[in-house]
Structures are given as structure tokens and as C-alpha cells.
């Protein structure tokens, strides 16, 4: 297969960026999109051109490191797929593929396709945990957890922290990311006690870190590679409201 690529290149956070055109030949359908970029990079290095900078690590859809906008959508047009999981057989031979970085105020571009996402860690620091001490605890079966609750918590806990939801949101909101964590912990008996505090402070810090507010566009759900549902946002809103009322009272 052969492809024409339009790739965003930018030398540094302050430098202006633009699209560059590349042709890649001899692409094998089994290749992943990132392996195709590896191949292109090999060719660029051999020519003495700096290779395209992009991040990845696990290359199996779980670490959340990779993340680019492919043909206009975060993680590419296929649903429930991370960038590293995209395989070339999903494209038409000869197609033009556009690749650019996640774009959001809270995610400044560092170089080419690589963005800075430290804000997401800050949001978790604001309460995305249970305060259980590390050490000896009651037996894991001492508190029973209804299977449905555990399954629901697991659905939400599957978030890989990639930030695609932020990149897809017109307001650059991290609401889906926050809501996923609130839903994960708040559904389990171990996380419930701290839910009010967690909902308030995570939402506040989210805004401090430059993420926008949610105005129900729901683009996030469409791009989320792990299928996190916007219904979790409604749950977060309820938890937030309840906690704010309590705080005021």
C-alpha cells in the first residue's frame, strides 16, 4: 500500500507549526499507524532530516501515551481505538492521511505531535484516590461489593488518561476524565466516603489547570478509546451539586 501523509510539524512550544507532506510506499496492511510513522522516520533519518516526534509506549492501547488527531478525530475515525491500535488495513490504498497533535489550551504542543498533559496528573492529585493508608487492612472480602457496582466501577476505571476527550471538546473540558474517576471511586464502598470532597476539588482544580467547562457537546464520548460514557458526567454533576449544597449549608 502507499499513502500520502500531511503531518503537523512544529519545532517547539513557541515556534509556529505547519503541515508537511510525505509519501510512504511499501506499507503492509498489518502495520500499525505508528509503525508506518516509524518507517517514515527511518527514511527521514537516513536522509538526514529530523524524524517526526510523537509519543508512544505500550503500543497496545492501555498506557494512554499515544494520542494524535488522525483525519480530524482524536485517535482516528475508528471508534474505541487508541492511535497505536490503528492498523493500516483500515485505510484505502493511496489515501491521504492527516496527522496532527491534540489541540487544547491545557495541552501545549512541545514538538511536532507531542503535547504536554501534566494537567491531568494535577486533577488526580486533587482527590482522585481513596485516602486508605498503605498497610494492613481488613480482609478484601469483609466488605461485599454488588457485582453490578463493581462492573460499573470497572467500566469507569478503564480510562487510560489519554486526554482525547479534552482534545475533542470545543471547550477543552476534561469533564469526562474527571467524571470517570468520580464514577469509579464513588461507586465502591471504599471510595464513597470521600466522594463529596472529591467531586468539588477535582472539578475546581480542573478549571484552575486551564480545562474548560462542559456544555454538553458530548464529542468526548465519541472519541474516548475506552468507551467512557457521558452518563458519568451527569453522575458527577449530581455529586457536585449535592456536595456544594452541603458545603453551603
Amino acid at each position, binding site marked *: 500500500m502507499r499513502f500520502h501523509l500531511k503531518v503537523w510539524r512544529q519545532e517547539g512550544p513557541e515556534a509556529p507549526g505547519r503541515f508537511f507532506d510525505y509519501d510512504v510506499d511499501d506499507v503492509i496492511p498489518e502495520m500499525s499507524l505508528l509503525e508506518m510513522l516509524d518507517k517514515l522516520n527511518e527514511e527521514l533519518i537516513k536522509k538526514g532530516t529530523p524524524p517526526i516526534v510523537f509519543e508512544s*509506549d505500550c503500543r497496545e492501547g492501555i498506557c494512554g501515551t499515544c494520542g494524535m488527531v488522525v483525519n480530524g478525530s482524536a485517535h482516528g475515525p475508528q471508534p474505541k481505538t487508541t492511535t497505536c491500535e490503528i492498523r493500516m488495513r483500515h485505510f484505502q490504498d493511496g489515501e491521504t492521511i492527516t496527522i496532527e497533535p491534540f489541540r487544547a489550551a491545557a495541552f501545549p504542543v512541545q514538538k511536532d505531535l507531542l503535547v504536554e498533559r501534566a494537567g491531568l496528573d494535577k486533577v488526580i492529585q486533587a482527590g482522585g484516590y481513596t485516602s486508605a493508608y498503605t498497610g494492613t487492612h481488613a480482609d478484601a472480602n469483609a466488605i461485599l461489593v454488588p457485582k453490578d457496582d463493581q462492573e460499573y466501577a470497572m467500566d469507569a476505571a478503564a480510562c487510560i*488518561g489519554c486526554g482525547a476527550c479534552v482534545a475533542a471538546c470545543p471547550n477543552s473540558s476534561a469533564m469526562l476524565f474527571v467524571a470517570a474517576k468520580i464514577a469509579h471511586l464513588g461507586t465502591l464502598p471504599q471510595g464513597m466516603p470521600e466522594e463529596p470532597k472529591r467531586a468539588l476539588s477535582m472539578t475546581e482544580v480542573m478549571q484552575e489547570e486551564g480545562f474548560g467547562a462542559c456544555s454538553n457537546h458530548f464529542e468526548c464520548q465519541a472519541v474516548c478509546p475506552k468507551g467512557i460514557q457521558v452518563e458519568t458526567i451527569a453522575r458527577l454533576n449530581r455529586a457536585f451539586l449535592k456536595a456544594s449544597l452541603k458545603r453551603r449549608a
Partner: protein
Amino acid sequence: MTLDGKVPSGPIETRWARHRDHLRLISPANKRRYTVIVVGTGLGGGSASATLAQLGYNVLAFCYQDSARRAHSIAAQGGINAAKNYVGDGDSVYRLFYETVKGGDFRSRESNVYRLAELSGNIIDQCVAQGVPFQREYSGELSTRSFGGALVSRTLFCRGQTGQQLLLGCYQAMMRQASEGRLKVFPKKEMLDLVLVDGEAKGILVRDLTTGEYEAYAADAVVIATGGYASVFNLSTNAVGSNVGAIMRCYKKGALMANPCYTQIHPTCIPFAGWFQSKLILMSESLRNDGRVWVPKKKGDKRPPNEIPESDRDYYLERKYPSYGNLAPRDISSRAAKEACDDGRGVGPSGYAVYLDFRDAIQRHGRKVIEERYGNLFELYDHISGEDPYAQPMKIYPASHYAMGGLWVDYNLMSNIPGLFVIGEANFSDHGANRLGASALMQGLADGYFVLPYTIGDYLATTQPGKVKPDNLEFQKVKEEDEARINRLISIKGSRTVLDFRIELGRLLWENVGMARSEESLTKALEEIPRIREAFWSDLKLTGSEKDLNQQLERAWRLSEALDFAEVLTLDARERRESCGAHFRVEHQTPDGEALRNDAEYTYVAAWEYKGEGEKPEMHKEPLTFEVVQPTVRSYK
């Protein structure tokens, strides 16, 4: 050099408790005066950082990814072992201990393994308290499943994302400590080197991966938790960034490298498809609970799998190992797959794959149950291969996966360098010559949550806090060394890329130091490695500068260390003239092709000491004694 493992004596059941009771303590008020560096934020480093910070130490945690949550522990799928005996199938601490020692083919320390089994239950309690959503039954109780090499059901899991959930537990605990100011995380900073002051580990030198700047960090002790080295084979189940750099630099500073030849080849991965691949994807071993492994009986049978009748299929694991069947340990299953393919009965385009078939399980339990158990793994497989495993069997083949070897540590997890601790996959401690499934997560968390937090205090109590500062001359010296090495890499200006060399090395190791090793293949590899290294140092081509974000340079640095490491690994494999666990020497096998151990001569840990560039390292031996379990021929028949 005499190697003192500091292994306690007395009844094995109480060794750890008694040992712990005699460790020196630091008063709570004094702890904050001590700084500990933890390199790595996986299950080992993450659990250690969070616990040390909670105890009151001042912790600096480093990783090369952009967030601590992305360490490769995140990719573990199948599960974590714990001797909880929840299902009442006769599990116990002793049984987990026994199976681990046996699974490791009697090449691990009994005391360490017993402690690991003993702590396994606490880990689960801890994780549940953190909100890890382990799979549950309708009763609300925890579910378990079986893993290779075990006769009981003791593996807990979170769908196919157990590592992710356990790591998020650690990461969240870290973030809580960070918010309280006792822990500081330094993402995107790669440890280049260990800094010794008066022979003790007192800091590290890092390269900031965004700016290319060198930075010095001083501490009262250094903990290495940088994961395994399976990536020296180029294609492995590890992350593309996983590397041996940090432990190699410690080795070059005098830490001993133990049993580097023990590398695990995982039996169930999506098969190799070509050198363009950047990694091989694991299909969790848990699939072998319900999947049946087979190849056609006839050589070169090209019929589609569903058209091959029962009578023409060879369920070779069930045939050869009737009591464990599809759950035979990894080393045995991997070799059996290789044997079948070498015999011309492999499937798929390359002939190097075997089937993992769910047809019978789907008939027995229904699609829904199978979906619940393995849904996301089936999805992943479908995604990558384009084939639907509900409709036709998966094709799998072994791939390089895990490092049992690593830096040598004593019972306190301290290396032979005072103040240098090594935990998680980076150390050599608990798995002997082969690790059982679902035991690495257990070990990483046992090390970080429950062992190191006690034992490190014993060392720190002997030191004066904050004695060494980053302006100490030793930091400057190390920086000059490493800067020179990096400048050398940049200035070669040859014609071949890092990836080119990485593939060449990986291929050499896979073919000669992989699943079957011989005196001849190992000697060949030992001749070839220096040749590749020389070519690397004279013909490498990099672009860009060192004072910048330069991913090629990062990879070149890591590969330069892998090239040196490959030699120690191969040397160790050649010197161990026996087969044990994952280390299979073709000269040493039983008539029916099983590993043939030589206990009289090789019941020891081989710990290699660096002797300088181009010099042959020196082997030290730590004899292994078995007081509780008598080494026997490992049988899974």
C-alpha cells in the same frame, strides 16, 4: 567477594516476622529528614514511593513517561496471585510458596519466596481499600481463576486489565502523597547514572527528556524499580521504551547482575509478522483456562482450522502433560509450541503459530460467559489480527516477555552497594529460572508496599540524613562521563539508524540465545555481539542535538547499554551448562525433551561483577540451599 544474602534462619513460617522485628527503626519525627530517590513508577516503584512518603520520608520519584501512571505495569492483563483460599480448593501460603519454588525450577531463595507467598493476601486487602475493582461474584465476593503452573484457583483479576487497575491504585496513592507534599514526581526524566559517594548510593544523574539538560539529585538512598530487560530481544511484549539502561549503569558502578540468562518467553502472543513490527502483543495466559492449544497432526495441513476434524488435531499440551494440560507452565508451553512448529506442524502464513481454540468453551459455557471473562482480550485480538476469535481459533506464538534475572539483592532487597535497593522486575529475587503467571504483579507490590518500607529503614538508620548534596564532586564526575558518552553518540555521524542496530541485536539474540540455546549458538552470539557493538559505535546515524528533545538519542543511549548487557546475558547462558526453567540448553535434556537440571553443580545464583569496558566480567556464586522443599525433577505430566 562473598555474597551474603542475609537470609534469616529458623522455621520458615516465622522468618520474615522475626527478621522484621530486629530491623532498626527511624523515629516518625526523623523520617522527614531522609530523602529517598525511587527510579520507576510501575508497581514496584509506585507502591514503594507511596508507602515511603506515607511513612514520612521525603520521596523523589522518576520515570521516563510523561506521567507516573503510564509505567508498563499498566499492560499486565491476566491477574495477581494471592493465597487467600477463597474458593476452598486447598490453597495455602505453603502451597503458593511450593508451587513458586517448583515453578522456578529450584533456582530461587526459599526464604524470599516464602515471604512473598505470606504477603500475597495483604496485597489484595490493600488494593481493595484503594478502590481496585477486582472481579466479583453475584454474592459480592471476589472471583478467582487459575493460571499456568498452579493446581488451584488463586488469581484475582480486573477483566483483562489487572495491571492497569493495580497501577492506578499505586499511582493514586502517589498522587495523594504528592498533594500532601511528601512526594515529588519527576516525569520525563531519564536516569542516566547512579552516583556513589564513599562507595554508597547517594544520588542519580538524569537527563531531562524535554530539554536535554543534565540534572543531579542527591538522596540518602536510591531505589531502582525500572522494570525488566526483555526488550533486548527487540521484539517483546514490553513497551517500546522499556530498557535495561538504568540497571546496566548500576552494574557498571559495581552492582552485581544476577542470573541474566533467565528470560521468559511467553507462550501466548500474537505471532511475529515481519521486522516492521515494533512489539509483540501478549494474549493473557488466563485464556488458557478455557482455550485449548492445538496444531494439525499432519505436517503442512493447510485446511482452515474449523475444517480440521477432531481426529486430525493434536492437543499437544493435553497429550503430553495430562495433569496440567493447557495450564502447563510458560517455559514448557513455549518450548512445546516451538517443537510443534519446528516439526512442520505450525499454522498461519509463516508456519510459526499454533491455535488457541475457544470452540469447546463457548459450547460449554455460552458466548456470554466467555465474553465476560475475556471480552476485551478478544476485542484486542480482533483489532490487531482482523480475525474473530469467537468464530475461529486464535493464532499464537511465544515471544520474549519477562526478566527473572536482574540486579542482585539480599533478603532486604539491597544490592551489594550499600544504599542501593532494587525492587520489582529489575531485581533477580523471587522467581528462580522461571516465573509463574500472575506472580510478577504480586512480587512488585510485595516489594514496594510491604518489604522495602521496613528494610530501607534498617539501612537509613545507619546513615546521617542529608549528608550528600548535589554539588558534591562525584556528581560532576559522573556528569562528565555521561556527557562524553552522549557526545560520542551524537558525533559518530555514520549511516545506520538506531532501529537498524536494535533489530540486528534482537534477531541475533532471538535466534541464538532464545528458547533453545547451545554451546555453539551461544559462542556464536558472543562473537557477534562485539561486532555489532563496534559497528554501532562507528556507524550510527543520529539527527538533532543533545540539548533538545531528541528521541533518537534516547533510544541510542538505551541501545548502547543493551549491547553491553547482551554480552553478560549470553555469557551467563553459556556458563550455565544445564537446563533449568526457561533456560534450555539443547545439550541438557531428558530423552523426552524436558529440561535436565544439574543440581550438583549449578544450584547457585550467578552474580556477575563488571570489570571494565571490554573486560570479561567475573562470576560470583551465591549457593542456594533447600531446607523445606527438596528439589525434584519438575513434572507437570
